[in-house]
C-alpha cells in the first residue's frame, strides 16, 4: 500500500463534503482558490529562477517533451492554461506563426504580468493574448482550440473534474489536451529520495532564494496530494477524453497525460 494511494483516498473523502485540501491542510472549498492565489502571488517574481533551481533545469526538458508531443502546426490555436510565466506559450507562439494564435491564461494576475513582460522582451507580441481565467470555468466558446496544455497547473485547481470538463468543452473536435504534472515515482527508492528532496530541501531552497518557505512547503504538499497516473487518466476518460494515455518522465516524478476530443 503506497502513500499516494492512501492520500488519494483521503482526497476523495475530502472532496465529498465542503472541504478540500490545500497541500496537507483541509480548507473550505471556496477558500482554496484565494489561498493558491496568495502562493503564486508571492512566488511570481522569483518563479522562473526557482523553477530552474528546484528541478535543476529538468523542467525545461519536460516542457520540451510536451511541445514535441503537441502536434502543433502553423495556423493552430493553442491555449496554455495555468500558463504562468509563459514558457510553453513562447515556443507555441513561434510554431503557430502569424496565422495561428496562442492564449496564455492564468488565474493569477501577478503571474500573467510576469509572463507578459517576459514574452514581450522576447519580441513575442503579435499572435498572443493574455486572459485571466479560472480553469474551472473557461471564458471561451465551445470548440475553440486545437491544443490545450496545462503544465504544473492542474494540481492547484480546486475542482479538477470541473476544470477537465471545461477544457474538453473548449477543445475542437480532433484537438488534444496535454497535462504535464507531478505524479507518482515508479520506484519506492526514487519515491523516498524524492520525498526527502521535496519536503526538506525544497522549502529550504524556497526560503533561501525567495525568502518564502511556506509557499514551497505548499508546493511539495500539493505535489504529493495530486492524483497518480491512473487516477488522472480515469478522470480524463470520465469527462469524455478519448485515447487517453500517459508517459512517465524522470521515473514518474512527472507524467505527461494526453487525451483527444473526437
Amino acid at each position: 500500500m503506497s502513500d499516494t494511494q492512501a492520500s488519494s483516498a483521503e482526497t476523495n473523502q475530502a472532496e465529498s463534503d465542503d472541504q478540500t485540501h490545500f497541500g496537507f491542510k483541509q480548507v473550505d472549498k471556496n477558500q482554496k482558490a484565494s489561498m493558491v492565489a496568495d502562493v503564486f502571488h508571492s512566488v511570481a517574481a522569483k518563479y522562473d529562477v526557482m523553477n530552474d533551481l528546484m528541478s535543476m533545469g529538468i523542467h525545461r526538458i519536460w516542457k520540451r517533451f510536451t511541445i514535441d508531443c503537441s502536434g502543433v502546426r502553423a495556423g493552430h490555436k493553442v491555449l496554455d492554461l495555468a500558463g504562468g510565466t509563459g514558457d510553453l506559450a513562447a515556443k507555441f507562439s513561434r510554431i503557430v506563426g502569424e496565422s495561428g494564435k496562442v492564449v496564455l491564461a492564468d488565474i493569477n494576475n501577478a503571474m500573467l504580468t510576469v509572463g507578459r513582460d517576459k514574452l514581450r522582451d522576447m519580441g513575442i507580441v503579435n499572435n498572443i493574448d493574455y486572459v485571466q481565467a479560472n480553469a474551472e470555468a473557461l471564458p471561451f466558446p465551445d470548440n475553440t482550440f486545437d491544443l490545450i496544455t496545462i503544465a504544473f497547473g492542474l494540481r492547484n485547481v480546486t475542482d479538477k473534474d470541473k476544470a477537465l470538463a471545461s477544457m474538453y468543452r473548449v477543445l475542437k473536435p480532433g484537438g488534444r489536451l496535454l497535462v504535464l504534472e507531478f505524479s507518482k515515482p515508479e520506484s519506492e527508492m526514487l519515491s523516498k529520495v524524492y520525498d526527502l528532496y521535496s519536503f526538506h530541501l525544497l522549502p529550504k531552497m524556497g526560503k533561501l532564494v525567495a525568502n518564502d518557505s511556506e509557499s514551497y512547503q505548499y508546493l511539495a504538499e500539493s505535489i504529493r496530494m495530486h492524483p497518480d497516473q491512473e487516477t488522472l487518466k480515469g478522470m480524463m476518460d470520465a469527462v469524455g477524453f478519448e485515447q487517453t494515455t500517459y508517459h512517465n518522465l524522470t521515473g514518474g516524478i512527472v507524467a505527461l497525460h494526453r487525451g483527444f476530443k473526437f
Partner: protein
Amino acid sequence: MPAAQLVSASIERIINHLLKLDSDSKAALAKLKGKRLTVKLREFPWPLTFVFSDKVDVLVNESFDNQSQKEQANISLQDTASANQDCRIELSFSALQTIQDSSQITGLIQRNELKLDGDLSVAQGFGDLIKNIDIDWEEQLSKYTGDVIAHSVFNAGKQAARKINKHTKALLTILSEGAIEEKNIAAHKLLVEDFCSDVNQLRSATERLEARLTLLEKQRLKTT
C-alpha cells in the same frame, strides 16, 4: 530522461547562438519564416523538425510510447494542408557518403536510400542560412581571451569552416550549372543531403569551439 529532448535542445541552442552572432543571417532567416524542415536520418532514432520564425526551434518528432506508427499516419493525413509549406528529407548515413558524387544520386533514389518531398526551397533556404553564416570568430573570441589566444583558437576553427564552405560551394555550383535540369529530383536530393552533412559538420565544429570558449572564459576568470 528524454534523451531526444536533450539533443534537440543543444542543437537549437547552437544554431540560434550562431545566428545571433551573425547579423546578416536575419534576411535569410526571414525568407524561411513560417516554414518547417523535417530531417530523418534513418540511423538516428528520431526525426528532427526545424521550425523557422525569428529564430529556429528544433522539435523531435517523437511520439508517445509505441503509438508512433499510428501517430505518424495521423500526422501525414492531418498535415496535407500545410505540407506544401514544408519539406521532408529522409536518408541514411551511407547515403550521406555517396551523395557527394552526383552520378550516384539516381541510384540512391532507386534503392530508396533517399527521399524528399514538399517544398524544396525550404531546404535550399536552410542551406543558404547555414552556408552564409559569417561570423568573425576571431573578433568574437578576442573579446574573451585577448588577441593572441584568439588567433590560435581561431585558426583551428577556420580550417573546419573552410572545409565546410568549400563543400557547400561545390554543391551549389553543381546545382546552378544545370544538374537540376538533368536529374530533376536527384539534384534536389543531393542539395538537401549535402546541406545536412554540412550542418552536421558545422555543428560539431561549433560545439568544439564553444567548449574551447568556455574553457578560455574560465581560465580568464581565474587569472583576473
